[in-house]
């Protein structure tokens, strides 16, 4: 496994751990989601370079478009939750308890 693969794996794992263990602010979870998408973009962009297939060069662009849509949606949800809950502290998300 080359250094490139290792760096990609570690970046993704760190970001997913950051997403799983976010503590106080919702925006840090969105940041970790974005960094996961970024590491996926780098990995997808490395693919046609390493395998010399130029037909899959559109894949990172497509992925980037979708991740940008998701980021926008996440930010819109952040704004909406700040409007209704008052802040983005995760302790306030307890209206739906069992």
């Amino acid at each position, binding site marked *: 496994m080359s250094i490139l693969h290792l760096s990609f794996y570690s970046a993704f794992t760190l970001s997913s751990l950051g997403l799983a263990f976010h503590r106080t602010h919702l925006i840090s979870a969105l940041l970790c*989601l974005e960094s996961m998408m970024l590491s996926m973009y780098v990995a997808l962009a490395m693919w046609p370079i390493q395998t010399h297939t130029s037909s899959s060069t559109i894949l990172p662009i*497509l992925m980037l478009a*979708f991740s940008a849509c998701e980021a926008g949606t996440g930010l819109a*949800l952040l704004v*909406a939750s700040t409007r209704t809950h008052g802040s983005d502290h995760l302790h306030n998300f307890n209206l*739906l308890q*069992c």
Partner: protein
Amino acid sequence: FTISLMMGTTITISSNHWIMAWTGLEINTLAILPMISKSHHPRAIEAATKYFLVQAAASTLVLFSSMTNAWHTGQWDITQLTHPVSCSILTAAISMKLGLVPFHFWFPEVLQGSSMITGLLLSTAMKFPPITLLFMTSQSLNTTLLSIMAILSAALGGWMGLNQTQIRKIMAFSSISHLGWMAIILVYNPKLMLLNFYLYTVMTATVFLAFNSIKVLKLSTLMTAWAKTPSLTAMLLLALLSLAGLPPLTGFLPKWLIIQELTKQDMIVAAM
């Protein structure tokens, strides 16, 4: 938005490249989020946020597992997932999307925070692409992990639904346990899983639509609903019993066939 949902589902079920499958899943997530948060009620927004975070993380994990597999085997085909780490991550990611234990914590709250029709869409239509992905990759999934999760789901879905008063949370737990049943049969007989899913969809749709038309939200409202529409309530009773899987009704059929398959494969313990 329903058009986007149908398009996303169609893209995922008709794909054989992982990026297409991921695209369809993302379109589904993005399309259903405005439907959840349409009412501007704090509960709805909170449900939408939780749903978004979980589904986005699961989608990214799907993409990551397919990328790992692509690096190790050089191809992006869905049915040829061979790298073991990639299979485990994929199993975990799809079960996050579906709501199997231990990734089920978002499901009752999200279902509670959305309206009845959206809840119906969430439980039935949104489950369809991940079920299709499971069906397509059924021979390469991580069997042990899936079996453990499925048994836990079937058990926990029943237990956690016992002390609930909100109808939508009860439906959420029923959903979780049905998905557990579907997941356990996946490795041995994928077509049976699809049969179970179709029957489950029809029954759940019936129950949700009946609840929507008599506008019950809590169990106490359900108790007095017979005064309004006696015939619909009687039908609802039959549908609920069928959903629970009692013998003379349709819901028993998948459970019987699943237990039969499990005993043929010497998994008597799991069938309990």
